[in-house]
């Protein structure tokens, strides 16, 4: 009962505002605790069920996103390095093949050239030989004709000088002897 009266007295104090030092004015305690409990409870409830899980999710989301992006970047870099290496090998390969091809072509051309030259030389040699033979033949024939002319001329000369036909064998011997 006394407590109730005390509370009533305090309540009137609260309404009028007394001269006591406010923080030690116990009449306001209950009202302050009452509202503190309600409001701190609400604050705790809002923070623990809405705000903090949401901020935690945002931070986690960002962290995983950054990690994912970094992983992607490093994977792409690896791919790029691999592609570069593959390109280098291919390039070296192609270079080698091109060099081999050039070498072979060069050798083939050289060989073809040689063969052509040889053929040409052979042909020319054959032609030269034929020409020489022809010259020889012509010369022999010409020489035969010259011999005939000499024999006739010698026989005619002898007949004219001696008045009798010349011995053909002697003429031939003479011609052979004179022909050095």
């Amino acid at each position, binding site marked *: 009962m006394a407590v*109730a009266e005390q*509370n*009533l007295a*305090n*309540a009137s104090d*609260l*309404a009028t*505002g007394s001269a006591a*030092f*406010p*923080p*030690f*004015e116990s*009449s*306001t*305690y*209950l*009202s*302050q*605790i*009452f*509202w*503190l*409990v309600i*409001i*701190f409870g*609400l*604050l*705790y409830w*809002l*923070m*623990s069920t*809405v*705000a*903090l899980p*949401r*901020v*935690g*999710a*945002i*931070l986690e*989301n*960002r962290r995983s*996103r950054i990690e994912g992006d970094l992983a992607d970047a490093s994977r792409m870099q690896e791919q790029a390095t691999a592609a570069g290496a593959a390109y280098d090998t291919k390039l070296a390969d192609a270079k080698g093949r091109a060099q081999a091809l050039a070498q072979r072509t060069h050798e083939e051309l050289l060989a073809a050239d040689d063969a052509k030259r040889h053929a040409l030389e052979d042909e020319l040699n054959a032609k030269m030989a034929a020409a020489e033979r022809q010259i020889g033949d012509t010369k022999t024939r010409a020489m035969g004709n010259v011999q005939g002319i000499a024999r006739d001329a010698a026989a005619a000369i002898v007949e004219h000088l001696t008045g009798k036909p010349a011995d053909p064998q002697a003429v031939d011997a003479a011609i052979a002897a004179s022909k050095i």
Partner: protein
Amino acid sequence: MAEQAINPIEQFNVSPLFSSHKLGHTDIAFTNASLLMVIILGLVSLLMIYGTSRRSLVPGRLQAAAEMSYEFVADTVRGTAGNEGMRFFPFVFSLFMFVLFANLLGLLPFSYTVTSQIVVTFALAALVMLVVIGYGLFRHGTHFLGLFAPSGVAKPILPFIVLIEIISFLSRPISLSVRLFANMLAGHITLKVFGGFVVLLLGSGTAAALIAPLPFIGIIILTAFELLVAALQAYVFAILTCVYLNDAIHPGH
């Protein structure tokens, strides 16, 4: 009336804003202090819920502030009470934001400093100690009482040590609440007294009015200092809560 204006205690008056409400015989009037509490709740929710509503990958200003508060408190809790302490993270976070906003809002002219009421700070400190004792007993049972008997103490002096530990434990809620309350109270009284000097000097009508700017400069410096105190006391309150919670989680010394 002039005397009323420069009374440095008047700012701590708790007065009902509406006609008194009664719960049984007790008065639970919605006072100016209650209004400030509602504003604190609104501002913290604005920052933490509205500010993060877009869930941007690249945060805006409000979301960055919300994330900074989250990470700051999370680092404090993890650093002081370990990973197991993170189950109390929402509790410590709510305490920190409530005290921080109460302290900062109290610095605004014509507002009210909720934490300048010993009953509020003591209620918060008592809540912390209840959580510590409750969780300690729940988690470790009677082993939690080992908190009062450090291992490796010689038998003859053990009773004294236990006595000292119990006194130290019981004084925790008192020191926790009085530290915050006294800091806020003293800071605001000092500000008000300096403000009173300005009014008195200007109103004196003599040559003394010329030095009125001096206490005014003092107010500017003190306000900056009070901003520091407001943030620091909120941090101290949060980190001591973590330290006490750490005792509940790891009661062995």
